[in-house]
């Protein structure tokens, strides 16, 4: 089973890298960009075939390692 985990900074957490990218987009002439938030994507291949159990495993991975929940939130998708 294939999964995609997306980790992003929580709302309200300052994202200086996102801000820098926002500035670079503006300097390239892309107008109308409200804001940019940078995050991380993990593509994970699992042996598990049961979607519920796979989801539980992925949530545990996020809580223990993939995200630091002090500042980041995560989203798990089975693909």
């Amino acid at each position, binding site marked *: 089973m294939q999964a995609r985990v997306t980790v992003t900074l929580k709302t309200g*957490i300052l994202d200086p890298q996102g801000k820098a990218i926002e500035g670079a987009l503006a300097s390239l002439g892309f107008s109308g960009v409200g804001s940019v938030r940078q995050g991380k994507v993990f593509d994970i291949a699992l042996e598990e075939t049961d979607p519920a159990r796979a989801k539980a495993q992925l949530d545990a991975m996020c809580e*223990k*390692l*993939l995200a*630091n929940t002090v*500042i980041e939130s995560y989203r798990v998708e089975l693909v």
Partner: protein
Amino acid sequence: MKSAVIVFPGSNRDRDMQYALTRITGDAPQMIWHAEPTLPPLDLIVLPGGFSYGDYLRTGAIAARSPVMRAVADAAAKGVPVLGVCNGFQILCEAGLLPGILMRNASLRFICRDVHLRVETADSPFTRAYAKGDVFRTPVAHGEGNYTADAETLARLNGEDRVAFRYVTAAGEATAEANANGSVENIAGILSDRRNVLGLMPHPENMIEPAHGNTGGRRLFESLTHTLVAA
């Protein structure tokens, strides 16, 4: 004094720490590889600076899950002093031994220069040779030292007198200009709830003898020596 410096792949201030501990405590620390699942009885554990695992995922994130960290957490729970400097501070936060997290410097730049620190509490094994309010100069060298925690955690840190150091001017004022990396409330170092775990971004081990230009970091190690001899 039986101390140990934990060495991770990518640690690079481990030998500076070894030198400082040897010079000030009189005993050379054991250098312990991160893959060790157990630790001998120790009076002090140090997580040194560096770029463990190349800062992959998040600074300190992979090191915090390495085998030795379970033993470090067990020792900390028994009251053994644990000191984390720079990457060591990042590892302690990622391991959950200290609250909050170190984010990218607000300036987005790697900072390598001297800063001034104000001692906010002398009530810890690491700071008792200082007086509250003492200001000393010490170097920083990091890209991710911007300390952040939620409001509840900050209130607890302040309320329980657990902020050990703040970035200040030479005159001892916690101004925005003195805040090297954008840390919330100029926080440079914090203590655990039992006060036996200290994490700080600056490098006191690099300010211990006149050749360093200043000896302001020396008293941190002297604090530990006195504490442990007394205990």
